[in-house]
């Protein structure tokens, strides 16, 4: 990744804020601070907004279950972000697996009319471009440009090496450039 991007975006600076001792209160505070931001990441990683909401909710519930192992407030946010990214990947993989078992091409789930209208509005050029990427490329670019993480932070979040992040980013950018050329 040769191009410079702005410094990391940390929503509401809540990562450095003290959390309440009570588990329920702490989860509620984290929810208020990070839910929308995490939902934005999940929306860029998944095609279906409902899936994105599920994944984010699952990550909060997962944190609630593992609250005993959270040592610092920063840990909670990192856990949530990694959980959203990994949950999105799992969700996509499961959907693709289900589609392949049915011997049909994967189609997004049929949504209600109201939701479908919203979906069409949201499936903008960005969504189209991102959908054309592989799962890892999409994760790397979303974390890089949506969350403004460094390569090291992306590697830590995804559980892979910095070299791997660089490779996925480079190939992802190439794919995005090709998409843009095709669109223009």
């Amino acid at each position: 990744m040769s191009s410079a991007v702005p410094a990391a975006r940390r929503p509401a600076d809540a990562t450095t804020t003290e959390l309440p001792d009570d588990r329920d209160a702490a989860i509620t505070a984290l929810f208020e601070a990070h839910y929308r931001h995490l939902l934005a990441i999940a929306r860029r990683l998944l095609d279906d907004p409902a899936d994105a909401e599920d994944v984010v909710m699952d990550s909060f519930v997962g944190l609630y279950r593992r609250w005993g192992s959270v040592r610092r407030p920063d840990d909670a946010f990192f856990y949530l972000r990694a959980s959203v990214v990994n949950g999105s990947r799992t969700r996509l993989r499961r959907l693709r697996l289900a589609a392949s078992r049915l011997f049909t091409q994967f189609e997004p789930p049929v949504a209600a009319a109201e939701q479908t209208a919203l979906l069409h509005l949201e499936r903008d050029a960005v969504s189209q471009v991102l959908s054309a990427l592989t799962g890892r490329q999409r994760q790397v670019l979303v974390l890089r440009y949506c969350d403004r993480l460094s390569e090291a932070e992306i590697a830590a979040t995804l559980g892979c090496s910095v070299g791997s992040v660089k490779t996925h980013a480079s190939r992802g950018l190439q794919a995005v450039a090709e998409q843009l050329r095709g669109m223009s």
Partner: protein
Amino acid sequence: MTTDHDLASAWLTEALGHDPDPPADLHAARLELRRRTRRISVQRRLAVVAITATVAVLGLVVVRALPDSPITPPPAKHLQSGLPIGTLKGQVQFRGDPDSNPGPRSLWFVVRADSTGTYSIQAPGDIGMGPDVWPVRYTGVAPGRVMLTRPDSLCTGDDNELTLDFTVRGNTVTITRAVTGPCSTFPDRPNVDLRGVVLRVTRGASPTP
């Protein structure tokens, strides 16, 4: 020169970097989170109750199923009087004229857990018939006082051989008072004073000196 990567990067920065937070029904999400966390709390409480109840029931079952376990008490270390069980060995000083073989002599008491035992006196370097060994029974009179009786005594009525007052400190027994009975076989009793004699205790020692 602008490369494909730069173009793509600039486009993504513009498209994703200024991405507004998506519309979301926060109220519904809050309610959903509360519902799911409450369910987890309830499940945990139920699990704790279930585990506690299971452990309690299993514990009761195990306790009831166990036979009256034959718990063997640890071997006693003292008789009731407080006299240590084992071999008690010390030295006594005999006085008197040279013919009566004055000087130090070894003194043994063998004390068994069933209150039987022996006592014996041997002169150092004695190469004669060996020491006399008298079988005795130790009867506690009071804490720190024991009476040695001889079951094979020919005396009728009073088989008291020796009554000892003693104190125990660690592995030593100090005789503080000694009184012989009317039929005592204790040799040359007038020429020996057992008071202050310190006996060293060897536990589990051979019953014969």
